[in-house]
């Protein structure tokens, strides 16, 4: 099949950036979307032009590296799919596709379709962990965890931090990402001691990064490649509000 691509080209964060039109020919339906871009890049290099920079690594939908907008949709038209797992059989000959990097002030463009998602790591640093030093863990089966609870925590933990939720949100909010980590840990017994501190500090860290507010568009859930539910946002808000409103005074450090 032959395709017309309009791709965002931007040399560096300081560069202004523009859409550039390319024609790609001879793409087979079994190629993945990223393999189609490989073909384009091979053709560009042969012509002496710079290839399109895009982020990718595992190419099997789990590392969370890849992702860009295809005709305004994060990761393209197929639900529950990252662009590396999106195959060309879902497009047809003659299609015109617009490729843009994730849209969010909190994700500055590095080059072409590559953005800086360092904000996600900083949100995790603020409380997305259980404070347990190596070697101090008790026997694993000491604390039973109901299967349903564990499964629910897993549903949240499946987040790959690709950033599609932010890119699709009209407010550029990071609630789905943040709530997935808050919920994963706050649902489990191991996460209880730090539950409310975690909700408070992660929400605050998220706001500090310049992400927008959540107004329940649910666009994030619709484009999430891992199908993470916005129910977790409600869960996070509940823990956050409880932490804020009931603010249990901490015991004094010294008697």
């Amino acid at each position, binding site marked *: 099949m032959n395709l017309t691509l309009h791709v965002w080209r931007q*040399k560096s964060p300081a560069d202004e950036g523009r859409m550039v039109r390319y024609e790609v020919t001879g793409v*087979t*339906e*079994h*190629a*993945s979307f990223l*393999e189609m871009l*490989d073909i384009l890049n091979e053709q560009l*290099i*042969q012509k002496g032009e*710079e*290839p399109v*920079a895009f982020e990718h*690594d*595992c*190419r*099997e*939908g*789990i*590392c*969370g590296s890849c992702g860009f907008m295809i005709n305004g949709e994060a990761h393209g038209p197929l639900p529950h799919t990252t662009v590396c*797992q999106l*195959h060309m*059989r879902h497009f047809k000959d003659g299609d015109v596709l617009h490729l843009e990097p994730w849209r969010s002030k909190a994700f500055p463009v*590095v*080059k072409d379709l*590559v953005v*800086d*998602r*360092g904000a*996600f*790591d900083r949100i*995790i*640093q603020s409380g*997305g*962990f*259980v*404070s*347990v*030093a*190596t*070697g101090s*863990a*008790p026997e*694993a*089966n000491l*604390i*039973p*965890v*109901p*299967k349903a609870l*564990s*499964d629910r*925590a*897993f549903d949240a*933990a499946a987040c790959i*931090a690709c950033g599609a939720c932010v890119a699709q949100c009209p407010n550029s909010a990071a609630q789905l990402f943040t709530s997935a980590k808050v919920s994963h840990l706050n649902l*489990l017994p*191991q*996460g209880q001691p730090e539950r409310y501190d975690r909700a408070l500090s992660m929400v605050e860290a998220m706001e500090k990064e310049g992400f927008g507010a959540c107004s329940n568009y649910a666009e994030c859930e619709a484009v999430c490649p891992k199908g993470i539910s916005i129910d977790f946002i409600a869960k996070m808000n509940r823990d956050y509000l409880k932490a804020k409103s009931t603010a249990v005074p901490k015991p004094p450090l010294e008697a």
Partner: protein
Amino acid sequence: MTLDGKVPSGPLEKKWDEHKGHLKLVNPNNKRKFTILVVGSGLAGASAAASFAELGYNVKCFCFQDSPRRAHSIAAQGGINAAKNYHNDGDSVFRLFYDTIKGGDFRSREANVYRLAQVSVNIIDQCVAQGVPFAREYGGLLDNRSFGGAQVSRTFYARGQTGQQLLLGAYQALEKEVATGKVKMFPRTEMLDLVVDNGVAVGIITRDLVTGKIDRHAGHAVVLTTGGYSNVYYLSTNAKGSNVTAAWRAHRRGALFSNPCFTQIHPTCIPASGDYQSKLTLMSESLRNDGRIWVPKNPNDQRSPDQIPESERDYFLEVKYPSFGNLVPRDVAARNAKAVVDAGRGMGPQKNGVYLDFKDAIQRLGKKTIEERYGNLFEMYEKITGEDPYTVPMRIYPAPHYTMGGLWVDYDLMTNVTGLYALGEANFSDHGANRLGASALMQGLADGYFVIPYTIGNYLSGHLGQALTTETDAFRATEADVQERIQRLLSVNGKRTADSFHRELGRIVWDYCGITRNAGGLKKALELIPALREEFWSNLRLPGGADQLNQELEKANRVGDYFELAELMCLDALERDESCGSHLREEHQDEFGEALRDDAHYSYVASWQWNGVGKAPTLNREPLEFEFVKPTQRSYK
């Protein structure tokens, strides 16, 4: 060079405890005076970096991805072994040790493997405490499954995403320490060389992948956790960015590279669909528990698989190995699938796959059960191929997946270069000639959480008060080498892209040093590879400059190292004139095609010393002594 693995004496089950009891310690107040460089942020790297920081050391951790959470450990599907014996089915530390050493075809060190089995139980405790959502039973306790043909249920798992969940646990522990300031994280930063001063590793040279800036980093110790080298084959199940550069640069600076020819080809991957193919996707080994592997008896059978009657199907594994059937070890399954495809009996448009059929399992257990067990894998398969495995048999074919070879290390995980350590897949130590399923995750976390935090103190304690500086001749010279190499790559101005060279190199290594090898083929590869390497350095086309994000430069730099590694792999495979584990020399097999080991001549770790490009490396042999187990011939009849 005499290689001393420094294995402690004494009874097998006491070695590690005794050794730990006598390792030198660094006073808690002195730990902050040390800086450790950790290269890589996968299971081994993230767990080591977090554990060092918790102890009080300063850590600089480097990864080429935009976040440490994206290291390739994240893609591991199946599970992690631990000798917990939760199923009361007779598992024990000794049994896990024995299975691992036998699975490795008796080409690994007894003491290292025993320690791995010992600390396996602590790993599960640690991960559960971190909030890793392992699969559980209805009573709330941890679930286990039998994996990769093991006779006991010792594999812990988190759906088909065990690697992801374990890595996120380690990543979160790492980020916790980034927040305290004990770890400084350098994402999008690639190590391009090791700085060795008077035989001691003193630092590394890195490139900032966004700005192209070359930097020097000094440390009291350097820990490489940079994974394996399956991408030498171009098509593999590894992430596109996985590479051998850090380990190879260390090798060129004096670190020995051991058993490079021991590469695992995983039997169940989705076959390539065309020339544009950029990587291969693994389908978990667990599928062989319920799927049946077959091809039509008539190679020219054009009917769709469901129209082919039972009597006209060849269930070749079940026929050849009646007791293990479809659950034979990875290397045996891979070899037999290759033989069938090589004989022109492959299925699919490229005639490069064999069927993995779930029809019987669906009839026996119902579609719902199969969906519960493999739902996510079936979905992934359908996404990639456009075919529904509930109604059409999957097509599978072997693909490079894991490399057992790596940098030589002693019992403390230190390479022969003082102060340089290698952990996880980057070292050679635990899997011998073949790795068992669910043991890569175990090794990565064992090394990072429970071995290196103890052993590194023994080395550092002797270096208290040693000031760190990058203003030395060794740093200046190494940085100049890095700059020179980048300029050399950029100034070739030829016609072929790095990918096109990589594909051609991969094809050579796959054909001659892949699932099976023979002397004639290996000799041929040893002529083809240097010729292609020469062409690479005179005909590479590399757009863009050094002072920017330049993904083509990253690729070319890595491919340059793969040429040298590929040559060493073939040389090692040629030198090892026996079959063992994953290394099947066609000259050495019995009448059933089983590997014939030659313990009298090859019971050693082949450790190669670099002598320069195009120059023959020097072989050092570390003899393997089996004090506690008796090497036996594997049989899966």
